[in-house]
């Protein structure tokens, strides 16, 4: 089965804004997705969490748009929208009925050009509190909630900008000032540091005209900084382990590995390997740990692709009650290592490829996803046509290539192991002390 190639056009405005357009008139829907080439990797110590806080500020109004009015206008137009911040980039997107495309473009241009006109201490303070609550809700107030922050901190050295989490720290968030916001905007939010993808029921001539009308007057920033060399040794060098007592009923072991960068074909092979290892009930880890030996409640393994030196391959296994943690850790790592000793069988390859194909078809059938990927491949690789080549890349991964990448990635010296163990709460400790004291008294009497 092949997926028809996505036809698109790719051009730049004189001010550097890259515009990618792909038509699809099947549904009366259009997706707009704008990627700015700034993420948490552009943050410096003392200012972590800033790119994401800034993303929130982008919804607080601009010269001709009120606080939260962007969202109100998109929803009133029958659209959905959001923004996300990650290590390598920030994106803003809206999907709307196709006759509302011009509004979306006008809104994105207004904030790209004039965010600072509406910036106020009050709005910054408000969104700071919102972001701090996002941090609490997503990480701090959840069982096992610190896992990703800890894996990042172990896998990447302190001087590397992947060391800290995108959400940032409470201290740094509290310290963010209006001047910081202004400087960040002027440095990064320029048309020549952005890609806008428009996908769906669009007339390209109209889209071009509107993009030029609304974005064309926004000046270039000739001084967008280039990050220094973020390259890293492919291996961590020595295993790192941490035991994390937490309010959890079941122990859970998290694993992290440095992996080849996003864009490297070895990461493609690692992703297919992860599908075979943990991609559902037919996978090696699920079959052995969850079904046959019944030592794990659940298992996972996946990669997060980054372009700044190395990607992260992460996984976990939740330990069932009355099962030794060591046994689960050993079984998990044995299966990872087995990938390089007993490479994927023909049947495993057939199944993995069939699932990847269906997944890809499912993802690309939505205009929102297509727009995000076109913007992604343009921003990270200067190659929007990757959207038409990635599936073939995955399907051409062989058992030998998986064996090789598994052999180099899943080594003990490239491994972080976090073991979350149940914490006995203080109340119980007090109760135990009390019981012990009573027992002593009884003995004495």
């Amino acid at each position: 089965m092949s997926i028809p190639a996505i036809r698109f056009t790719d051009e730049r405005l004189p001010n550097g804004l890259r515009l990618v357009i792909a038509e699809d008139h099947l549904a009366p829907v259009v997706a707009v997705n704008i990627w700015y080439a700034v993420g948490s990797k552009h943050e410096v110590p003392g200012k972590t969490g800033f790119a994401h806080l800034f993303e929130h500020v982008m919804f607080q109004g601009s010269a001709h748009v009120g606080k939260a009015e962007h969202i109100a206008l998109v929803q009133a137009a029958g659209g959905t929208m959001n923004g996300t911040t990650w290590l390598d980039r920030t994106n803003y997107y809206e999907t709307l009925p196709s006759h509302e495309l011009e509004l979306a473009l006008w809104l994105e241009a207004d904030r790209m050009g004039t965010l600072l006109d509406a910036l106020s201490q009050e709005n910054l303070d408000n969104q700071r509190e919102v972001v701090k609550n996002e941090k609490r809700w997503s990480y701090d107030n959840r069982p096992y909630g610190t896992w990703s922050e800890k894996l990042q901190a172990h896998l990447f050295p302190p001087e590397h900008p992947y060391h800290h989490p995108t959400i940032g720290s409470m201290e740094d968030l509290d310290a963010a000032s209006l001047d910081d916001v202004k400087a960040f905007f002027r440095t990064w939010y320029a048309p020549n540091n952005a890609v806008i993808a428009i996908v769906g029921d669009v007339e390209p001539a109209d889209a071009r005209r509107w993009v030029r009308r609304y974005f064309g007057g926004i000046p270039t920033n000739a001084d967008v900084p280039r990050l220094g060399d973020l390259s890293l040794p492919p291996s961590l060098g020595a295993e790192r382990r941490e035991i994390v007592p937490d309010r959890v009923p079941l122990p859970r072991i998290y694993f992290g590995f440095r992996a080849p960068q996003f864009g490297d074909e070895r990461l493609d092979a690692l992703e297919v390997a992860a599908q075979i290892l943990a991609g559902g009930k037919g996978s090696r880890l699920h079959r052995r740990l969850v079904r046959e030996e019944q030592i794990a409640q659940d298992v996972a393994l996946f990669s997060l692709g980054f372009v700044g030196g190395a990607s992260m391959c992460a996984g976990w296994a939740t330990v069932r009650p009355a099962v030794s943690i060591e046994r689960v850790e050993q079984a998990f790592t044995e299966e990872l290592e087995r990938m390089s000793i007993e490479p994927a069988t023909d049947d495993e390859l057939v199944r993995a490829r069939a699932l990847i194909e269906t997944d890809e078809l499912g993802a690309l059938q939505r205009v929102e996803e297509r727009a995000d990927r076109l913007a992604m491949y343009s921003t990270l690789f200067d190659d929007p046509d990757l959207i038409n080549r990635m599936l073939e890349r995955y399907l051409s991964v062989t058992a030998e290539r998986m064996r090789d990448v598994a052999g180099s990635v899943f080594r003990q010296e490239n491994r972080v192991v976090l073991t979350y163990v149940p914490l006995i709460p203080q109340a119980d400790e007090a109760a135990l002390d009390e019981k012990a004291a009573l027992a002593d008294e009884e003995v004495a009497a």
Partner: protein
Amino acid sequence: MSDGVVATRPKPGVPRPYQFPAFERTRLANGLTLITVQLDGRPLVSANMVLLNGAADEPATEAGATVLAARAMSEGTERFDAIALVEAAERLGASLHAEASWDAMTAGVEVTASRLEPALELLAEMVGRPTFPPREVERLRDERLNDILQARADPRRRADEAFVDAIYTDDSPYHRPAAGTAETVAILSRDHARRSWERGMDPAALTLVVGGDLRGVDVAAIAQGLFGGWEAARGAAQPRPVVARSAQDGRLVRLVHRPGSVQSEIRIGHPGLPRRIPDFHALSVMGAILGGLFNSRLNRNLREDKGYTYGAGAGFDLRRGPGPFAARAAVNTEVTVPAIAEMLRELERMRDEPVTDDELAAARDFLVGVFPLRFETPGPVVGAIAGLVVHDLPDDELARYRPQIEAVTIEDVHRVAREHLHVDRAAVVLVGDADAVAGDLEGAGFGRLEVVHDEVEPAV
């Protein structure tokens, strides 16, 4: 300073006409209903079998049997053991799945149209001839028991559980989690799972919905071959009406103590309404204004104005029976009491003041405008039709949705708020740090306060 941008807000273009796709019903020889939806240009087909047997239909002592049965259907059939079944599906690139909710069991598959027939064969095998192997059922049962431990430790899930426990009487099915409690799940066996599955296995009550680009695929002939010979199981039964009653006649405040919590997970509400109510559209508009839109009253107040939360919302869970109405927010511990006060204030305000023209327009325009976006791909189309089947709604329900939303007035919204929001007997349930908030909660006078201390059972 307006640097290089255009001040004038653009006007919308002319909307392209959109109708919810037409669908065709056929009845197979044994009474099984087949609904097909032709969706040009959508090669990834979605097929869904609906069994009118949900968690609400199981005896209370066997709570969790229906969810367990759904999970266990794919763990062994007469022709395949679990691994063989999953591998057969994966070779087709098909995802084969089954799940149960309060209202129904559904089993489905997503696969390219060219492989639809073999995928439906597997679906027929899974739904029609499951064997519920004891070893697998016991493993799934134990997984649910472990999941119950995890749910206790997760403040969001613990809040949801404590909330329904507070608002429904003990004999209401909705009082408990759909997947059952530690007590009821512990005794479940493959016989319970099998009995639950049998309840739904009456071809005259089964519906298969298939949507996608089906040109060149004779779905009716395939369905007749695979499902047309099915007979009713001995244990097949009609779903019974769901009786779910309110446990509260005044305001209860229940705080589940979670030491060191940096947020309080708050739920405020009461038993709500079933899906089949004449006020469905007015209720949808009211819900969007109160707590559905980003600029809803609750979110604008608690997030955009006060910064108490990452998000606040509210809504009715409309099931075959009256599912809960809840307003929800997770707020930093320090602002727990003021946040609850604001949430209650917004609920009262919704009852006391009619909404403005702008609020009505925002909700109406969103619900009407987003309608085509909801159905971009076959999955949601098939899901929406399955929903009509579950709730016994007419075939033109979706075609009438937008005009009926357009027709909702300010008076309608006010009326449904007054009739269906019961702030005086709403339970306020939260999971948070009692050491930090119990004192202030007591003093706030929201209602009679109960503090719950979960027993901690460290896993051995």
